[in-house]
C-alpha cells in the first residue's frame, strides 16, 4: 500500500460525504455546470469560478485513482 493511501482514502471519504449532502437536483446541476465550464474552457473562455471547481474535482478524481499529484519541477 502506498504511504499516501490513508490520505487518499480520507479525501475520498470527504468527497463521498459532501456528495451525499447535496440534493439530486444540485448534483445534476453541477454536472451540467461542469460540462458547460469544460466546454467554455476548451473554447478559451468561461466562468473562472466554475473552471476552478472543475479543476479541483478533476484533481480529486486523479488522486482517487492514481494517487496524489506529483509536483512539477
Amino acid at each position, binding site marked *: 500500500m502506498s504511504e499516501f493511501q490513508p490520505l487518499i482514502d480520507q479525501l475520498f471519504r470527504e*468527497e463521498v460525504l459532501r456528495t451525499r449532502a447535496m440534493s439530486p437536483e444540485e448534483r445534476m446541476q453541477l*454536472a*451540467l455546470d461542469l*460540462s458547460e465550464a469544460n*466546454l467554455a474552457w476548451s473554447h478559451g473562455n468561461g466562468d473562472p469560478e466554475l473552471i476552478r471547481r472543475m479543476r479541483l474535482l478533476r484533481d480529486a478524481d486523479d488522486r482517487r485513482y492514481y494517487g496524489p499529484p506529483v509536483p512539477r519541477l
Partner: protein
Amino acid sequence: MTVYEVVHRVLDVLEADERPLDYIMVGAMAVARWGFPRSTSDADFVLAAPGAVVDEMLSRLPGEFQVEEQARMELFTGTMRWVVDVKGTAFKVEVFLQGNDPHHQAEFARRCRQRIPVLNREAWIPTAEDLIIQKLRWARPKDIQDIDAILRVQSSTLDFPYIEKWCDQHGTRALLEELRRSIPPDL
C-alpha cells in the same frame, strides 16, 4: 449554444405535447443524479421507438443540430446509435435505440421522473439499480468508476435483491460483489 440549451432543445422534442416519446436520459447526467457529478462532452438518450421514429424525431431538432447521415451500429450496447453535432460547440448528443434485452425493458418500466432546476423542467432517467446493472455488463473503466460512485453515494438505499437478480442472469454477480467489498463498511 450552451450545454443547458442543447439538453433543453432535445428534451423539447422528446417531450413535445403532440408526439411525446418514451426515452431515458443516461450517461453522466443520470450518474450525477445517483453518484458523483462529473463533466461530460455529450448528452446521451435511449429511445424506446423504431428507428424510423428516431429519424423523424431528430429531424425536428433545430437547424443547429446536425445529425450524422449514417446511424452507427453500437458494439457495446448492441443497438443503433445516432450522433448529433451541434453547430458552434464541441458538445454532442447521442441517441441510442432501446435493445430487445429483457433488462432494457425493465429499465424503462422502472424509469423515474427527475426535476432539473437549472433547465426548469423534468426528464426521465433510469433508477440507480438499473444504471448499476447496465454498467456492470459494459464494465469499461469509466463504468466501474460510475458504479463505485453510485454504490458509495446511495449506499444502503439500493434495492440489492433486484440488482442481484439481474446480475445472476447476466453473469456479473462476482464483479458486483467485488465492488461492494471494496467499499468501507462505515460508508
